[in-house]
């Protein structure tokens, strides 16, 4: 039984289904990456796991608990963290305030967690009083991830974290994601940069038209000639 088990998810935004019996599983400390061509339903699948999409069929279990009926806010309380692709920080508020807002649902003292986030992303400690909107793209992504980490989630979901950042920043971000996973947090990630993402993935899901097409370890998928031919460019 995996820590996160989203099984046979079928659903869409309106009348037409986007996902067809899509299954995603992640274990604690694992990095699972969802890749696929444009329009494959990768972000949709992750939104379904987070509860932002009504499911006609299928269920989502977190640590054995059935959370299919819970709203996104309730899932955050249950231990999920979600980093959207765009508009994922409060641009007019300082870095520190962004982190404070990340911990909004917590009653206890969250300063220890904030210290952990600053230890993970040292540049944020340096820029803690600056408005998040003034930071570069890569730094803003760090704020977005830090914000999601403030609730001490057991599952962290990232929607295309390296979209629009330079290759060096992308490498740094993947390093940070590896560090986060090393603390025991399960990571589910949608990525367009398939090659680099699969290189750090314990598990890879290739989605095509809302269905699971290939499922294997990242390494195996990178080596698979058919996967390489269909979307890694050989």
């Amino acid at each position, binding site marked *: 039984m995996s820590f996160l088990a989203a099984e046979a998810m079928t659903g869409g935004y309106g009348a037409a289904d986007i996902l067809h019996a899509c299954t995603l599983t992640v274990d604690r400390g694992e990095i699972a990456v969802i890749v696929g061509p444009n329009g494959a339903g990768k972000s949709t699948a992750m939104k379904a796991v987070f509860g932002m999409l009504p499911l006609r069929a299928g269920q989502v279990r977190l640590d054995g608990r059935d959370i299919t009926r819970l709203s*996104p*806010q309730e899932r*955050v*309380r249950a231990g999920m963290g*979600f980093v*959207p692709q765009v*508009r*994922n*920080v*409060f*641009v*007019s*508020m300082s870095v520190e*305030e962004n982190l*404070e*807002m*990340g911990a*909004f*649902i917590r009653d206890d003292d969250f300063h220890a967690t904030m210290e952990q986030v600053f230890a993970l992303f040292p540049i944020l400690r340096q820029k803690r009083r600056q408005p998040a909107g003034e930071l570069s793209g890569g730094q803003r992504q760090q704020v977005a991830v830090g*914000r999601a980490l403030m609730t001490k989630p057991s599952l962290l979901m990232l929607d295309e974290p390296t979209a629009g950042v330079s290759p060096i920043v992308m490498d740094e971000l993947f390093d940070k994601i590896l560090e986060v996973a090393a603390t025991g947090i399960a990571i589910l990630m949608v990525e367009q940069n398939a090659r680099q993402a699969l290189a750090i993935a314990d598990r890879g899901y290739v989605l095509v038209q809302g269905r699971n097409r290939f499922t294997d370890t990242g390494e195996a998928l990178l080596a698979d000639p058919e996967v390489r031919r269909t979307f890694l460019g050989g």
Partner: protein
Amino acid sequence: MDVLNALVLFANFVLIPATAYGAQLALGALGVTLIYAVLRFSNFAHGDTMAIGTMFVVLATWGLQSLGVSLGPLPTALLALPVGILGTVVLVLLTDAWVYRFYRSKRSEPVIFVIASVGIMFVYNALTRFVIGTDDQRFEDGARFVLRVGDFRAWSGLSEGLAIRTSQLLTLVVMVLTVAFVFWFLQKTRTGKAMRAYSDNEDLALLSGISPERVVRITWILAAALAVIAGTLYGLDKSFRPFTYFQLLLPIFAAAIVGGIGQPLGAVAGGFVVAYSEVMVTYAYKGILTYLLPESWRPEGLVQMLGTDYKFAVSFIILVVVLLIRPTGIFRGRVI
């Protein structure tokens, strides 16, 4: 050349009145800008919220005065202020529950909220006129002047006199305290930060567990309190008449937009920009120029750019110019 007399004339008829007026506009604009930032619409009923709020204060003041309660040199209206604020908060929250919540649940366009607020404006105005009538009402008491013209002349030996009314000094002091409180609330408290987060990025705020109902409620409470304070200070300074507050909508919105709508600091700055512009453009500079210029250069006419009847034209022009040239205003608020 009589610089001192010219300065005193300027201070008495431009500086002091414009500062008091600016403080009143600042408080009004602050309420409007908070509603715009969080609830995302221009509240056309804000002027008449000021009217009905001030009406509550006036009635409570009369009540206190008839009981013989007084505050010495300060106006009794200050004691009645909490009552007025409470009444207005209840009214505004009821309005939100009965009117605006419906449109929020339907996710209506902002312009729908604006039209609804115009309807609310008529309702509030009618209620005010119904209860207290349409005439001038006076409710100030206490010492009228902090500094009298005669005392100033005796002290300075100048021919021109300077007077500072209690209401003007009170306006400035209350404004500073209120603005300081609002800024402290928004910057340092958890609820204030949640309001700013909700205004910045609604979806992310909801994701962070911020309760939208709570944020909306606190915004209305703050805006209502600001409206009552602004309206009372204006009423103490001039006099209370139900229709005046509707007319104040134009300078208040001009102030909010000049400063940058959605930016609290902008509302305060904008209030003073508009007030000073209004007063300085419609002031007759003949007296000052007579003191400053040599005999042969002295003006014959009033040297007044616009008659005081055209006061509101100044706000209107400022509004149009800002929207054409720099819609985000001084502190870069949202573009409407």
